[in-house]
């Protein structure tokens, strides 16, 4: 494989995957926050039933 400009190609691929990874992490964090909130609200409702 022609190795000219290899570093920047690597940066390119890395940037692409990093952005996707960043978004997946964001989704995961949101999931965790929502789950915690859901449990909390479910507990708020449960004793009153």
């Amino acid at each position, binding site marked *: *494989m*022609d*190795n*000219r*400009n*290899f570093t*920047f*190609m690597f*940066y*390119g*691929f890395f*940037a*692409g995957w990093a*952005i*996707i990874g960043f*978004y*997946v992490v964001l*989704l995961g964090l*949101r*999931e965790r926050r*929502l*789950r915690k*909130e*859901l449990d909390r*609200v*479910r507990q*708020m*409702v449960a004793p*009153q039933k």
Partner: protein
Amino acid sequence: MRSKILIGLVTVAVALLGWNLYNIFMVVPDEANQGAIFRIIYIHLPTIFTGFLGFMVALVSSILYLTKGDMKYDALAAGVTEVSLVFAAIVLVTGSIWARIIWGVWWAWEPRLTSMLICWLTYAGYLMLRRAIDEPAQRARLSAVVSIFGFVEVIIVYKAIDWFRTLHPQPVLSVRGGGGMAKGMEGPIYWNLLAFVCLATAMVMIRMKQDETSREIDSLRREAHQY
């Protein structure tokens, strides 16, 4: 059922991407002038097509919401726009890295790049608008309108290459009438496209599930505060 589909999609995506990675680096022949940086096209092109596909789905979903009034369409539009925005960001970044080598600059103010940037900004505005409105029906209605306006921008980006004299390379894919790719170079683009579409679909599904959860939280909270 849904989680099975999700896992299936992600597996397919990862498998395709892995196999394609081998393809991209070992099998595809070298390009004459650009060196290794040419291979960035295998991320750049598939992600932009995924992004545009997403924006198109968002448009259809927004129009469906406006005509039918079902909140499902609004949730789909929001989820798809968010994921497509991620892919659009990847396009801008990978394009910029390529440009640093080939053009010598990170950015050029030329029609295609500028219109892609405003497209991204318009849809980012869509997400900002959604966060600024609390009432669900109003939020759905107004963001649907913004989505429709945003799609005009997508069309401008797509056609910019035909209308203006741009610095951005002309289309090279055989389906767009270009003829610039040697045998064996085009295939991996489509495989990567399939992989990214699978990945995007999975992410949209996760996003929509989270939307559903958030709505459940809202209704439970309302129930809790009734007492």
